[in-house]
């Protein structure tokens, strides 16, 4: 008889703890989401909008490490000059080398009158060429991979 009452208590205790556990998980997840939302707000407030990245896959004769990542803004220029969004100080990079921009959900690449040329998948980009994530973008002798 006593044992039965004890079992009832155990059963209710178990159910209560089970729901407490579920509540704990949900609360922890909510906290996590808030933190993530706050940190993404911070990024939006501090820096310009980053829509994609260029990752160095082949650095050619330069001393940039392969795997280095550059942020891409909706309008990005690459070159040796200090006014560029991405500045690469190498001899074979022209002062204004390549332009990238994002329009209608697609990246476009065009050479900005460089000496050594800009390429999308080894195709010279004298005119604007659309590029999709995963494409290899050549700036002079440096090869980048476009990612989102």
């Amino acid at each position, binding site marked *: 008889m006593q044992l039965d009452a004890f079992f*009832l208590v155990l059963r*209710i205790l*178990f*159910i209560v703890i089970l729901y407490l556990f579920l509540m*704990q998980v*949900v609360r922890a*997840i909510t906290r996590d989401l808030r933190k993530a939302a706050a940190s993404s707000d911070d990024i939006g407030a501090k820096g310009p909008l980053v829509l994609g990245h260029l990752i160095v896959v082949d650095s050619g004769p330069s001393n940039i490490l392969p795997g280095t990542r550059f942020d891409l803004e909706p309008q990005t220029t690459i070159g040796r000059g200090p006014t560029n969004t991405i500045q690469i100080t190498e001899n074979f990079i022209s002062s204004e080398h390549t332009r990238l921009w994002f329009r209608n959900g697609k990246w476009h690449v065009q050479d900005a009158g460089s000496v050594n040329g800009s390429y999308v998948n080894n195709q010279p980009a004298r005119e604007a060429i659309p590029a999709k994530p995963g494409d290899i973008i050549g700036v002079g002798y440096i090869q980048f991979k476009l990612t*989102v």
Partner: protein
Amino acid sequence: MIPRSPTGFRRYRWTELALFILPIIMLLLEMTQLLLTKLDTTSTPDLRKFPIVEGLTPILGLIAVLLLTHVMFNIFFRKSDQFLLPLVGLLSGLGVLMATRLGPAISDPAQGNKQLIWVLIGLIVCLGTMFALRDIYYLARYKYTAALFGVILFCTTLANALRSKPDTPTHDQLSLGPFAFQPSELLKICIVIFFAAYLSENRDMLAEGGWQIGRLRLPPFRQLGPLALMVFIGLILFLVVRELGLALLIYGTFLSMIYLGTNKFMYVLVSLAIIVLLGFIGFKLLPSYARQRIEVVSVDVVNWTQASEDIYSKSGGGFQVVQGLIAVASGGLLGAGFGLGHPGYVPVVQSDMVLTAFAEEFGLIGLFALIGIYLLVLYRGFRIAIEASDVFSKLLAAGLTSIFAIQTLIISAGNLKLLPLTGIPLPFLSYGGSSVIGNFIIIGILMRISYNTALERDGIG
């Protein structure tokens, strides 16, 4: 931003550790109750003679291994997801408890310990998966190997089905010496890997569509091949192997991944229409096991008629499902109490029908909480998929989570007579080695993807 260089103290996975406290209490509580139910209730229990430590050893071992895994995550994968391990740990702990409890009822007293060993192997496999997948694209590169492996597993199931008698309930077994192994548990992972790699490569092609009939755009012929193969596998599974559950599982995952990959609802509708049409024709042509399974859903348990009685008493008919429903109903709102129900009447209660035993002993409230745990696991899975940085990881995480979701859905609905009952295990709760290991591989891949995402976002730090 997340603090760049947190101190060693703050870097610890505190959330995970905190989430372990209540599951540990729960598991110990239930194990104690299970031991107490075995006491002779007529005499006064002498608690001093009671072998409390020996009885609790299995569950203490499980807790120790879970905490060890937690420490390993802290050392090697500090930034991976912190919610999955406690949730999955609780689920597999409940699985061990259910196996221990149901073992004597089906005259296999060692079942609990066997399940415990499977969970331990599963946790090791989970860690091994995380170490092995240093580069997740490794899986994408070997997608045709995965597909080939899947086809071999599929063929073993097919060969088994053709060889064995038509009455046996499941053909989804492969005997390797003393172990009976379910190829489908690995088959489903292979299929998800292949589809994630395939879709992430051909996504543009599939999304744009090659040729057109009226308003409907279909993918180009070259891309259509693997998709047609899926329809074929689904139909073969349904009609020849008579594994309705596996067919539903694989085809359902295929549909969700197609939708996730291309964002075209039309493909889903068309594929669904094709399988329903072909399945219906096959169903009409083959009056067999599959038809009988579907008939069971029509049994009216409340208003018992002669038609119900016919299906109930037929061999391979509604006996199992109806007994399961009676078990669930006898549990009521609060349940009979762990170890105090009578789950032995339901056939195959330890694996396929484990949900009914759980519902009988923990009641409707316990059942809701269980579904809540599954939902939270799924939520974390899709969250990992959303946060992942590249298409392949996204599709892989979402696909693995989908297959987990669909499997849980199909077998729970089957137990409650909402779908035809099929022989697939309930993830982590059902007794069975290959199911536990397969699901731990899924969790391992998800954890690895979340770790990769965190590394890309914050650096190694």
